[in-house]
């Protein structure tokens, strides 16, 4: 596969290390009343969609950026690639 790195352009997916669903960015609040339940869902339950899937890849053999890749799990077609750090900020993980 080819991942079109937002900074570096097309790179062989073999340079990357896969982690999983991009929802792993949304780590729950440790002080929430239902923190235990939310951490269980965060850590263990997945949509595992057959179709568009937002997922985390680490450019280990490249610039060490974590990326959020939007990929169709039935065709492997990649429609969007973002820097995970930007996504994390956009999703309100800034302090």
């Amino acid at each position: 596969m080819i991942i079109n790195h937002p900074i570096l352009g097309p790179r062989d997916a073999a340079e990357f290390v896969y982690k999983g669903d991009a929802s792993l960015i949304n780590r729950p609040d440790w002080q929430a009343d239902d923190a235990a339940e939310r951490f269980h869902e965060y850590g263990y339950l997945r949509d595992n969609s057959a179709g568009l899937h937002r997922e985390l890849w680490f450019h280990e053999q490249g610039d060490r950026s974590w990326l959020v890749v939007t990929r169709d799990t039935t065709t492997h077609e990649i429609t969007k690639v973002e820097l995970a750090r930007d996504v994390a900020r956009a999703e309100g993980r800034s302090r």
Partner: protein
Amino acid sequence: MTGKNRLNGGMIDRSTSFGFTFDGVSYRGCAGDTLASALLANGVRLMGRSFKYHRPRGPMTAGSEEPNAIVELRSGARKEPNTRATTAELFDGLVANSQNRWPSLKWDAMAINDLFSPFLTAGFYYKTFMWPKAFWEKLYEPMIRRAAGLGTLSHDPDPDNYDKGYLHCDLLIIGAGPAGLAAALTAGEAGARVILADEDFVLGGRLIADTGTLADEDGATWAGKTVARLQAMPNVRVLSRSTVIGAFDHGIYGMVERVSDHLLEPAPGKPRQILWRVYSKRAILAAGATERPIVFENNDRPGIMLASAMRAYANRWAVSTGSAIAVFTNNDDGHRTAADLVSKGVKTTVIDTRPDAPETTDYETLSGATVTNTQGRLGLAAIEVTLSSGTTRSLTVDGLGVSGGWNPNVHLTCHQRGRPQWDENLAAFVPGGTLPSGLSVAGAASGAFSTHRALQTGQAAAVEALGDLGLKASNPDLPKAEDAPIRVTPFWHVTGAKRAWVDQQNDVTAKDIKLAHQENFRSVEHLKRYTTLGMATDQGKTSNIAGLAIMADVAGKQIPEVGTTIFRPPYTPVAMGVLAGRSRDKTFRPVRKTPSHYWAEEQGAVFVEVGMWMRAQWFPQPGETHWRQSVDREVLQTRKSVGVCDCTTLGKIDVQGTDAAEFLNKVYANGFAKLPVGKTRYGLMLREDGIVMDDGTAARLAEDHFVVTTTTANAVPVYRHMEFVRQCLFPDLDVQLISTTEAWAQYAVAGPNSRKLLQKIVDPEFDISNEGFPFMACGEITVCGGLRARLFRISFSGELAFEIAVPTRYGDALMRRLMEEGKEFDVVPYGLEALGVMRIEKGHAAGNELNGTTTANNLGMGRMVSKAKDSIGSKLSERPGLNEADALKLVGLKPVNPDDKVVAGAHLMTKGTPVDAAHDQGYITSACFSPNLGFHIGLGYLKSGDTRIGEIIRLVSPLTGVDHEVEVVSAHFVDPEGERLRA
């Protein structure tokens, strides 16, 4: 000179004659021959035996779709079983042998199977060989295995090298026939970066196998000139002997270039083959088409082959495939073969299934006729023809060409699970469904069969691709070529035929397919799996469609309703060596050497692989005959005086930034915010699921600067994890990370005299006394008169100890200096084993304890997991299952009888209980002989271990025959109070 069946003309180089042997008999052939063409030229047509019935077989094709003529090429360590004689390029000294026969190809005892064929029908083995039960493994299966298989693989290592490489292009063109050449010409002249690849060693596809002209020259000449033109273009890379084996995601194609297979052996330093990973923006499949046979009684005898193959042997290789030949066809193309053969002076008769077959005076044509049987034991001698009138007539022929029409080579279009579509007009499957992104199809592969249409569609595909690439096409003029219409009347099999071969290599007959249908194996996938149709080394290139046709027939369906099995990579079988490339033997993975490696080699150290690293395991001294002697000495001497160990392999990560401390608070379960500058602290790192990920130390060199250490094995995953936390979870912490593992040579200097030794090399202005540099202190210093260094007062051994780090290039010199200066203390270097012994004596957890399922609680470090802050893993570590009352706890164990061993991997049992899983109490993680205590000791996890100190329990290892009593003790065997550390 090179065989009795040689004709005039052809594309062989008669001036270069090659000697070769087949089954020990010597023959001669020409440069440009394949093994098959050379053997046919020499009158040899029996080249193999079939898989199941061991029927005599000769070549059926002239290409990579060959099911029958497969041989063991070369000999010794270079032997290549199952090699297609039809594609094996002839070279001087070639050695080939037939396979899957005994004692000889002509007299094959296993041919007895043919007589028992009524018993050996499709799936027969599922119904029998069950009685008595024990006989399967003992008798039946070994028998079957010996009979099965094809060629024999050598036991010797493959002596050749293989390379891998990466190619980039705008346009990859697969196949260099008329369509591929037209496409390459168009794209090349437009300035696109083009790769043109063809599996053959001569480019041109059917142009070099057929007669017929382009403009005013014959096809082969035009092909040759065009290839030369392309080779002259700097932006075009022409690769012959290069098979595109697979279409993978996003325009990546796998391609195998056979660099040296046409040589006796590869030139020095050169690979046998190269696996190219081709990155293409666009690709054109111009792989042509494969002629298909017609299924009739005894259609598998040597001498019966595809009509187009006969044509190729005659035109390209100047080989006559018989003295009297018949052509059995259902379409006009069969007549081209007849015409070519007749023009070469071969007596030819055409049997055309069509009542309205074209008539000519050049040869006799039997219209509306079919071949209903054949004779000849080791080769075709005669055929039986049923005429339109219904009467039968016998023809004495030694060659029979069969033409059932053509199948486009759609294989690569299916590699991403796209399914081809049925084309009524061609009576064939053409590319359809969703093609691999960026791939288009041209020429015969797309169903454009005439040379004219091949050229046109090739150019059109190139123009379209150039458009996508934003390049302007120049549309070079293409020569005028034949544009014969497709005239084919589907005719798949002669009805009533029983022992009529569909898949010739796997011996699947028409009867087998009917039986599969009868037993409800009707889905095309069931048919394939039950009969093994299309599962042979040719992947059914010549058999799948006929199989579908017969299934459709018995099911009363149309072929498309029955469906099609999709083709999978590779297009043709690929040597496993080339898929591994250089990654084999000692170079399977890189070797990482520590800074003291060369010095340790001089000391005669014994090394051990730890991940990629080579680490000194122990340093044998003269007179030491057993490794234990060396290890015991190293341990005792270190604890008595001082020892030095290279611990460079531990991961080191530089953590800087104004939020560095807060960041470490997140990734470590214990707190780091309040760690003073100049101090080091042990850190316990959890995965988010609450299980221990790694442990190490973090040294605070400045307010905004830490150096973190990881275990050797986890250096990479921990760094990756930290980047995840930094970029994805806390994107606005001001913290920067970089690995410095390789930058510093780091040595542990341990033992009561370690300070004295270091004081001799640390520059005087630095006070490393106990007061000036207490336990867990760290700092940047200089050594040996001004070399920058880092000093940490940490201890894995439990002794007064330091770790000192200098720039890696000075590591070797520093080790030599430490040994020199340490002489007065009888300093010893110690290796991984002694390190292990000392950490077990001290009760420090390591890899064996941190096995990915242990919690802080198991380690007795539950209290370290701070509840006062948010850190990775703290929440999920609170789950009840990880905090049960009888949870495993790390304890020490020592044998009740001092002579007994403690065995890592042994399980622990309460005394008096049965020895079974239900009563399992835990297991030993690490064990060693403690030279200080004089007996074996171990660390292990024991249920409620912390409350069972002093209990005598059973240590059992049925696997290694151990069962004796051990006492549960504190894991800290040596200096439990830790006084030595602080001395």
